[in-house]
């Protein structure tokens, strides 16, 4: 179970990404962060904190549950349904630069669903994508704008992102597993 | 033509026989019941070695069946009903008059008897209607129907509508020496009910039929039987309260008798919930009652309060049952399951003896209806039911001789079955699973 990122490395990556966001958008004026549930949400909050430190501005932050937009939702006739959780975007996304935040970028299907979901909330000026880890193997033409770490993987491997807010500790590990996440 | 049944356990409560005996049948009649009858030297005698594991009893009589003919031949006919009877161990059945037309006249009675004679299976005793069309208003021609062959009167399917009509019917039937059989249900209390009123029906949202609707009517009939001195018979008694009333009335010397149906002494209303909720094969009238009622019936069977086991055999086409519960027809078939159910749940369960079972299924029904049989008496027609009490059987509705399959007991494994049914000396049913009776089939 090799550790790819420890707490400090995660923290440094997010700080760097926060700077890149400010640089690319020339400030945070029309910016809002939207974390993809589950682990995109605390990452978005951490980015918001960094952005506040850098710019002194409180960036609006929301949470997006993409379950109802998944393309694999009804493919299996038998089996449990993924739990639907609340989406909380307590601000208008119209004409804003939306920074979508997720933990791992893999096939791209989650992000596809997130884009569909976001667009149902309004018409943002741009949508940019932050991921903590990009592990490759894209199945859709999707690319992250900000990446914490690129990790070459095989499909048989699994990336586990743990965050203190949810898992009690921070780290990213690479596991040899029977691949349970798409 | 002689038939000698050897070595069986013979039970005849009427004569007090309960042990190893041989039974000799000559020309369709019982010639002799005795210990070790030697085969006659003259003439041809078929000897069938039954052995001690089989029980020979006077033929069973189901005093409450619905044969549906005339009028509902898609459900059952006299012939298919009589075939179901012999397959179930019954040598005779008494059929209720709620046909179409109602058996409220000698011509319908004669028609039923003609159909029964043509079938040549179980004996069929028609029960005539109390009122014309069983509509509860005017008395039917009771004397005329007795002349034609009716053995009792009933408006079954419905109660005898009013106290006045019941009084008149008892008085008139008393003159004729026949009983009035009443389906005891106060319709105003029963309303649109489809299941026993109580917690279980309430959970299922089914309209209730309270026990009181039976209790009230049984009490009425007892009062009127006492007043008229005539014989009232309570059909398919189902409640603890009605049983108490009958027990007390009998103690006072009132001429009242009663029957219970196997489903009422075996099942209770929690079955409506599971394993199959809203199973329309559990819909009958009276409904499956509370477990307390069921237990009371079992006690009544054991202590002698209950006179007879009768099936209330009520065949219905699958279309009448494959519908919403409240739209389904009331009733289940019983002829081909009653004996095994009774052996398993009463005799093997230790509730009653085999001799008591014979009383309930043969001796008493014959006495109540005043028909031949119910005993093994030299000179009587040789109507015999031969039981295999240790035979393991599985109820198979698909194999029923009845036209209908509406039973909640399908697939039930039971201990005890019918080995053979002999009517007038002829073996009309021989169970292929019982090798000892194979010789009867050839007799």
């Amino acid at each position, binding site marked *: 179970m090799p550790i790819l990122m420890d707490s400090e490395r995660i923290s440094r990556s997010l700080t760097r990404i926060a700077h890149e966001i400010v640089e690319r958008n020339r400030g945070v004026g029309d910016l809002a962060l939207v974390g993809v549930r589950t682990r995109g949400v605390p990452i978005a909050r951490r980015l918001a904190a960094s952005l506040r430190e850098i710019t002194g501005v409180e960036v609006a932050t929301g949470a997006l549950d993409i379950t*109802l937009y998944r393309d694999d939702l009804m493919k299996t006739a038998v089996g449990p349904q993924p*739990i639907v959780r609340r989406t909380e975007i307590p601000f208008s996304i119209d004409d804003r630069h939306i920074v979508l935040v997720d933990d791992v970028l893999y096939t791209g299907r989650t992000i596809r669903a997130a884009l569909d979901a976001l667009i149902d909330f*309004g018409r943002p000026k741009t949508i940019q994508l932050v991921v903590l880890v990009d592990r490759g193997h894209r199945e859709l033409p999707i690319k992250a704008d900000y990446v914490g770490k690129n990790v070459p993987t095989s499909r048989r491997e699994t990336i586990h992102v743990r965050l203190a807010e949810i898992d009690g500790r921070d780290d990213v590990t690479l596991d040899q597993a029977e691949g349970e996440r798409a | 033509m002689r038939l000698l049944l050897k070595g069986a356990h013979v039970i005849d409560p009427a004569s007090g026989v309960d042990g190893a005996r041989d039974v000799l049948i000559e020309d369709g009649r019982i010639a002799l019941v005795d210990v070790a009858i030697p085969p006659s030297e003259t003439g041809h005698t078929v000897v069938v070695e039954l052995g001690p594991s089989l029980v020979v009893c006077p033929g069973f009589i189901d005093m409450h069946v619905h044969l549906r003919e005339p009028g509902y031949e898609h459900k059952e006919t006299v012939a298919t009903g009589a075939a179901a009877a012999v397959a179930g161990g019954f040598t005779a059945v008494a059929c209720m008059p709620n046909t179409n037309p109602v058996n409220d006249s000698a011509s319908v009675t004669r028609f039923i008897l003609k159909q029964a004679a043509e079938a040549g299976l179980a004996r069929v005793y028609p029960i005539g209607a109390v009122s014309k069309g069983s509509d509860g208003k005017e008395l039917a021609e009771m004397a005329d129907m007795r002349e034609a062959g009716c053995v009792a009167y009933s408006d079954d399917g419905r109660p005898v509508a009013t106290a006045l009509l019941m009084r008149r019917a008892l008085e008139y039937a008393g003159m004729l020496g026949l009983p009035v059989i009443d389906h005891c249900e106060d319709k105003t209390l029963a309303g649109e009910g489809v299941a026993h009123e*109580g917690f279980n029906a309430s959970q299922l949202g089914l309209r209730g039929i309270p026990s009181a609707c039976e209790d009230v009517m049984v009490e009425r009939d007892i009062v009127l039987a006492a007043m008229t001195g005539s014989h009232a018979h309570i059909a398919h008694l189902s409640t603890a309260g009605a049983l108490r009333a009958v027990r007390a009335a009998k103690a006072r010397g009132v001429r009242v008798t009663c029957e219970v149906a196997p489903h009422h002494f075996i099942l209770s209303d929690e079955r409506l919930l599971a394993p199959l909720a809203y199973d329309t094969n559990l819909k009958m009238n009276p409904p499956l009652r509370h477990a307390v009622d069921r237990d009371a019936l079992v006690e009544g069977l054991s202590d002698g309060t209950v006179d007879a086991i009768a099936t209330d055999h009520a065949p219905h086409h699958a279309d009448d049952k494959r*519908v919403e519960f409240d739209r389904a027809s009331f009733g289940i078939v019983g002829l081909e399951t009653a004996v095994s159910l009774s052996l398993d749940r009463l005799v093997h369960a230790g509730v009653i003896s085999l001799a008591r079972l014979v009383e309930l299924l043969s001796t008493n029904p014959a006495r109540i209806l005043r028909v031949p049989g119910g005993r093994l008496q030299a000179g009587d027609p040789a109507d015999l039911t031969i039981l295999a009490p240790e035979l393991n059987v599985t109820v198979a509705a698909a194999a029923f001789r009845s036209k209908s399959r509406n039973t909640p007991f399908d697939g039930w494994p039971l201990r005890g079955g019918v080995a053979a049914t002999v009517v007038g000396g002829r073996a009309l049913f021989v169970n292929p699973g019982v090798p000892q009776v194979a010789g009867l089939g050839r007799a």
Partner: protein
Amino acid sequence: MSDNAARLRGKDLLGIADLTPSEISLILDTAEAMKEVSARPIKKVPALRGKTVINLFYEPSTRTRTSFEVAEKRLSADTLNIAIATSSVVKGETLIDTALNLEAMSPDLIVMRHASSGSCHLLARTCRAGIVNAGDGMHEHPTQGLLDAFTIRERKGRLQGLKVAIVGDMLHSRVFRSNVYLLAKMGAEVWACGPPTLMPAGIEQMGVHATTSVEEAVKDADAVMMLRIQLERMEGGFFPSLREYFQVFGMTPERVRLAKPDAIIMHPGPMNRGVEIASEVADGPASVILDQVANGVAVRMAVLYLLAGGGDDETAA
């Protein structure tokens, strides 16, 4: 996987009686997420895209049918409405024949309202499609029970330990049964009140306190729920007059004052003002009657979503 995925054990929702407390919580939690969908500018998600839902209504019901229809559309399902007046039922087709005909069109879910108790059980045994009971006779109306619980939970933050008074015709009410089963399973204390002629036999065994005193039922209640009184019941001799019913059991402002100060007033609709409830109460600040309607859509979306995954009983969450 168990914390990220969950399911109902059966393919159908026939009644609350069949649900476990965790299944009930799953539906209510999912409904919370669904409620947010209804607050969006585009009130529609693609979750049931390509799924066919048939609404089979043998009894007229504007409210429930509309609520299901909105829920289905918000989940992007294809919906088909069959009402008794426009179906072959008038020609006497049996429920099973109708079911087999509908089944031939491969629906994923059938939502049925029917006058016979247990009719949804019959349908569920006949069809591969999942069956959602939208009210069967006097038996159950599970989505109503769920939306009532959702509404209480939304206002009170919990169900456990609350006192809920239910007043009205309990005998004929499927809403009563679903609410009693649900609230009892979730640990609420239910008081049931009405004339003894309108109480089902064995009501005490249902886990409720039964009383004919509306004051006793309402006293210190957290929620007061009225059940509809139908005029036919008076004609059926269950009580002498609507006027007398209102006098003895009607929910008046004076009676509401016996409940907790923050008690909520509920009614599954349609209401008979001046019979079971005074207008001042129905329209008063404590009334959540319109919230119930809004929550109905969210709860039905949750039920449809959770059942649309289909499946057998083997892999219970």
